[in-house]
């Protein structure tokens, strides 16, 4: 909250901040860059995916040049989003208390502060607030080692938080005329396409279930990103501390996480949002990502327990044409150590598609569908999960440069744990407002 107040005050103080249209024109291109905003730019997938959810991308603002020819610094831009969601969820096999949940579900809000205070240097602060966060201690247990009913001690169970308030806090440097971007701070590792997508660019209210099984949340580290050939190639390598990867209870894991991702979009970049609002020509993209860690688990009192190796790979295919957008990913994780002879192995994948229809000039609709599958604990006692989702996205201001500025989403979420014979059904409606 304090940060928010500081940010607002800063916005009022810094007179160099370009004026942003408000109200009905929110999200409209700034007057300095009409051409860039009117047509899909070749770099429609910006280097910082979380930077531009609600308004024109940063580079569209940063075009005013000083007398020296150097772009004027943009000290602060404020973007954000509000995504309240309401619905109901039913789990027929659950405890009576948990069979029905209703009310606010998956509600989320975010504020993004960004800028380029000096040539080639930029920053992003993306704060997100949602209901899943701050679960750090996952269990507290009285220990009765003798079975006499008395407590012999207390044990707390800790797990790495999978969600974080900081979606991204990073500083970036773009040497070589912007050909390469170096970024450091807290950010999501670009392991999958879904992780690269901004919260506001998602097809559904949340990322695909299989994606969350394999990696989620922000991590701390640095990334080098190159986007040659007008964004047709996008390659990144990075090193992170791995705080988003789960370690066994009461242990600490140390060891750098190396990531690499390569995407090729031979016919041009695909839409940043997972809907083809532009109803553009045929484009497709192939991508692969990898994550590798050779680390060590340490006990709660700091001694070495085991060395572990964590390998995660993903492959993606994307396609867009004439309003149709499809995206599929396969994912795999193998975590081994030198003690247990028990690999933590999982596979999964999903396919999702949308079709955008402009009903009128200012109203758009998009039916959505997604199917996902994971098999966890493959090397021990496999657990299979299937996700089926369907929905309809309604865009009442499709005439805005970013039609997703106002979005109403009605969605069904189905999750079927086939091994455990448990199901969950949810219906929710989500309103998205970008500012």
């Amino acid at each position, binding site marked *: 909250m304090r940060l928010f107040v500081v940010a607002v005050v800063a916005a009022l103080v810094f007179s160099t901040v370009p004026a942003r249209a408000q109200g009905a024109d929110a999200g409209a291109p700034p007057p300095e860059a009409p051409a860039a905003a009117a047509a899909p730019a070749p770099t429609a997938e910006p280097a910082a995916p979380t930077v531009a959810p609600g308004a024109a991308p940063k580079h569209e603002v940063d075009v005013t040049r000083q007398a020296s020819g150097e772009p004027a610094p943009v000290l602060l831009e404020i973007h954000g989003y509000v995504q309240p969601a309401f619905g109901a969820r039913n*789990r027929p*096999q*659950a*405890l009576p208390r*948990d069979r029905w949940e209703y009310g606010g579900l998956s509600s989320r809000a975010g504020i993004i502060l960004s800028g380029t205070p000096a040539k080639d240097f930029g920053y992003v602060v993306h704060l997100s607030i949602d209901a899943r966060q701050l679960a750090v201690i996952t*269990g507290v*247990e*009285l*220990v*009765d*080692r*003798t*079975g006499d*009913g008395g407590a012999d001690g207390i*044990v707390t*169970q800790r797990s790495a938080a999978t969600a974080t308030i900081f979606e991204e806090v990073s500083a970036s440097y773009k040497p070589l005329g912007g050909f390469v971007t170096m970024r450091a701070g807290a950010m999501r590792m670009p392991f999958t396409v879904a992780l690269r997508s901004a919260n506001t660019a998602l097809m559904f209210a949340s990322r695909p279930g299989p994606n969350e099984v394999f990696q989620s949340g922000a991590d701390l580290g640095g990334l080098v990103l190159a986007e040659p*050939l007008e964004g*047709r190639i996008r390659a990144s390598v990075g090193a992170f501390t791995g705080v988003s990867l789960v370690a*066994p*209870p009461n*242990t600490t894991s140390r060891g750098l996480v190396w990531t690499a991702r*390569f995407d*090729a979009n*031979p016919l041009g970049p695909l839409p940043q949002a997972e809907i083809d609002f532009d109803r553009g020509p045929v484009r497709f993209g*192939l*991508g*692969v990502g*990898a994550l590798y860690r050779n680390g060590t*688990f340490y*006990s709660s*009192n*700091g*001694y*070495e*327990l*085991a060395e572990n190796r964590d390998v*995660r*790979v*993903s*492959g993606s295919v994307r396609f867009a044409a004439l309003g149709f957008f499809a995206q599929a990913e*396969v994912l*795999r*994780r*193998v975590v*081994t150590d*030198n*003690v*247990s*002879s*028990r*690999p933590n*192995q999982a596979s999964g994948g999903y396919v999702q598609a949308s079709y955008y229809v402009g009903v009128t000039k200012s109203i758009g609709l998009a039916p959505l569908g997604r199917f996902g599958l994971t098999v966890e604990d*493959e*090397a*021990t*006692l496999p657990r299979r999960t299937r996700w089926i989702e369907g929905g309809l996205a309604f865009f009442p201001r499709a005439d805005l440069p970013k039609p997703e500025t106002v979005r109403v989403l009605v969605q069904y979420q189905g999750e079927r*744990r086939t091994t*455990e*014979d*448990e199901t969950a059904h949810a219906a929710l409606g989500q309103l998205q407002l970008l500012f």
Partner: protein
Amino acid sequence: MTGLSRFACTASLVLLAALGSSCAESLGEGQLGTPRALAYVLGSPPDMQVLPPISDRSGNIYVLAGSRKAPETSAFVMRTGGGVRAGCNVTKGDRVGPVGWVGFAADRAFYWAGSALVQLSWSGDCRRMFDRDPVTGTDLFFRAVFPWVADRPSRTTAVALVQASSDPNPLTVILDLTEGGQVITTPRAFEPPGARNVVVHGVGASATLRQGFLVTSFQDGDVTRVEARFYDEEGALLSRVGIPDPGTIPPLGFVGFLQANDAGLVAGLTEDKRILLFDRSGARWVEPRGMEPVGIHAWKGALWLVGTAQNQPAVASIADNGAIGGPIGWDSSNRILGELGGPIEVTDDRAPPRRTMRFDTPRPTSRFPLVTAHASHPYATDGTLTLIAGPTIGDGPGAYTLLAVAPVGVLYP
């Protein structure tokens, strides 16, 4: 295709090959993983009374020592992150020791000892579950616990036959084992209502079939009936099958647990070495041929009779139609014996810092590794857990032996 497209495709194919190669190697048949020191346990090889270890979903390993014929019970937790928790010896105080592992949840395991159901947690916490009727306060006695814990994301349950001291017959109940829950629900009366002197001879369950089964006898008027029964995961009785020529079966007179294959055939081995086969259509007795049976194992959906033949470890397949194949030498067991032919290094992480110790003369805890009354626990792909005995202190009935637990590759031929 442009050069760019070709490059993109090639790069993607190379990386997709990496995707396919991200596979973990499993242990070869009879190959030992890293042995980890457990604790000193009462007894000395080859007659140690220790059940095959099991693990929970988190990889914590649980070891249960004792036998049905003696009240002493000792349970241990070997934590996935290192460290061993010992000292759990909870029973109901009756004369029957551990019957077996009931199952596991994410980071807990449950054992049935005498008339008690005990939860053992990764933290070392050890407690009797449902010890008393929450309404009347009377003691509850577990007459049977189906050895399968249905661990779902929202609920953890098991099914048992429970009897209070005031009840004439046990009730079939659902045990809600959800952490913080621990509620008994859906009590169902024993059928037929007029039954008396209910005795449970053998119990089993199948996670694949999502069923439990038991062999029971009871007085129905003037008639003594011996039946095999099938229950679903809600404790509902699915079917009853009469057992012909039951002879004399003591209470809990089947060694280990009853085991089922994926086709629904259930097998059990009595203490006097008779094999009972039944499904929901009928039951029959079979005599083992050519081998000295020790137990019935279910592995990857199939049934195996394990034992010894010509003084060697052997297994015989049990087909879906109940036909028992001839005994085959069990390479997995023999290879483990080979691995234990010389000194082995054992990781000792019972307390930090981790260090390595040596078992100069390692031995299996039973005559042959894996040849046990209880089935092997599926610990990893084609892998289970085995116990290795190290140095022994003392001799005779008061001897204690240091045990280690090791993952091992296993194949049922």
